[in-house]
């Protein structure tokens, strides 16, 4: 069973070459799998047995609570250093994390803009229309591209979400910028030459457009979660709260894209472009129990390599 394979691997499950295998699993397989594990987890006797088998296998981490995860780039004092966020400006941890988030949102906003333009028959360089659509409305946009196999109701819904998400990511970018401005902090700038999808193609049909957005969103989710431990001197955890509120919507976006792509709602291993780390150290007890996270250096390297025009 796949889940046992994951657990018995132990440690951190890096999944680059497993990505195709995972994506090949359709939802029916996952549901069937779930039923097996579900049966174990529901029955208290077999659940205890299951836990102790894991412990006996040296995977005490699975049964132990709330490990701090994989550590990562912490210094010996337990604090993140700016070195963990290469190239990100900021005078302190909070500013660095906010600028890291902004760096991601700058890329996401632009990639969404390009995806929306592609789906709506606009040239790639057109700005996001500043006339904000009303809820449920398409504003100035019309779906013109082929659906790529989506039925017409799904295509209509998916296009609306694509449009909404494009505006939301732009708003996230502006929101983070406003917070940094309020702090008189240095503010991350967009990549000088801009961003583009591989081969400068957001997607030749709507479904492909969504498929190309999916790793962008998933990376964003993992990036935010990976940055949480870096927040120090965060009064009342306010910045952590804001960051989590942002990442919460990225997770919603990802699940929405997944729905129209016929994928599981996630979270899942190997669906992003960076190494998947877990808060407990393993994919416990199922691959979709907790969100995964990635380290900032990994994210930034992958982000720049994949989407930044050099």
């Amino acid at each position: 069973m796949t889940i046992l394979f994951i657990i018995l691997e132990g440690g951190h499950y890096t999944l680059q070459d497993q990505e195709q295998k995972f994506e090949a699993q359709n939802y029916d397989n996952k549901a069937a799998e779930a039923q097996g594990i579900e049966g174990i987890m529901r029955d208290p006797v077999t659940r205890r047995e299951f836990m102790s088998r894991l412990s006996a296998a040296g995977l005490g981490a699975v049964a132990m609570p709330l490990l701090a995860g994989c550590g990562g780039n912490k210094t010996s004092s337990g604090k993140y250093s700016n070195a963990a966020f290469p190239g990100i400006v900021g005078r302190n941890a909070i500013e660095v994390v906010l600028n890291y988030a902004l760096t991601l949102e700058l890329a996401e906003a632009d990639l969404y803009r390009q995806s929306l333009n592609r789906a709506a028959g606009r040239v790639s360089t057109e700005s996001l229309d500043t006339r904000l659509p009303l809820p449920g409305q398409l504003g100035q946009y019309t779906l013109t591209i082929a659906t790529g196999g989506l039925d017409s109701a799904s295509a209509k819904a998916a296009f609306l979400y694509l449009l909404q998400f494009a505006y939301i990511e732009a708003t996230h970018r502006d929101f983070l910028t406003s917070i940094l401005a309020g702090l008189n902090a240095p503010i991350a700038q967009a990549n000088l030459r801009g961003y583009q999808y591989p081969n400068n193609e957001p997607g030749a049909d709507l479904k492909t457009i969504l498929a190309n957005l999916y790793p962008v969103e998933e990376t964003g989710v993992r990036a935010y979660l990976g940055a949480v431990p870096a927040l120090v001197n965060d009064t009342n955890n306010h910045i952590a709260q804001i960051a989590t509120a942002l990442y919460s919507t990225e997770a919603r976006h990802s699940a929405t894209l997944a729905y129209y792509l016929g994928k599981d709602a996630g979270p899942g291993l190997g669906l992003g472009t960076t190494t998947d780390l877990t808060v407990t150290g393993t994919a416990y007890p199922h691959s979709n129990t907790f969100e995964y996270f990635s380290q900032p250096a990994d994210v930034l390297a992958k982000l720049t390599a994949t989407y930044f025009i050099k």
Partner: protein
Amino acid sequence: MSDVHDPAVSGWSGLARGAAVTATVTAATLLFPTKANALSLTYASSVPGTGDIKVLNYALALEDFEAALYQAALAALPALGVASGNAFYNYVLEFSQVELDHATFLRSALTSAGGPVISHFTYDFSIITKATSPRSILELLLQVEATGVRAYLGAIPLFSQGSKYLQTAAAIQATEARHTSILTILRNVLYQTATDVAPLTADNNLTGKFTNASFQYENYSPTGYNISKPNEGVAGIDANLQPDTVLAAIGPFFVAPVAT
């Protein structure tokens, strides 16, 4: 198209009709059913422990409730024509497993941390067991998940500053967000509603206002957007709810603690 809704279930008033689960969220817009003589749950008196342990117990109370709710839904749906193989059922099955995982994990974590650990509760899910339409079950699940999303966000400031539990709590929180979006899509697809799957801009309620002067930000107005007030739901982010608001909303489902 008129709403399909069940006749009132004895003892309960109203049904979860989460009309706009991403719109401005206040206590008044939490569309939970109410019940006379419901247990009164508060963060101060109903959640054991102090500091981080208390917050984790709050999370556990929510997850235990969600896990039990999902089990009740799974049991009730087949008789209403929604069974294994049906997309709605399959998602409910998957999410039920995740919520159970969360509850199991938190309980184990609290036990290992030395407790105290909130007791299990028995619940009144007659709204589920007596449902005559799958829609009412979907509505309640959706409302609960949407509330969980915001409950976790509201709990973040209650953790100790820079708590080691923050990342784990956040790792749970976003799964609730995914569930909320999926259930919203299902509702839109099955019942022709048109609910947003994620907070739109100018569409949520940031209750955690910055009070530290250095965090104040002015009316930032990016080109083309007209933001009239700071902190007034302009950011397209999920809102947060205070524990007492959440506990008051879900309290009616709680019957009694299970003696250990």
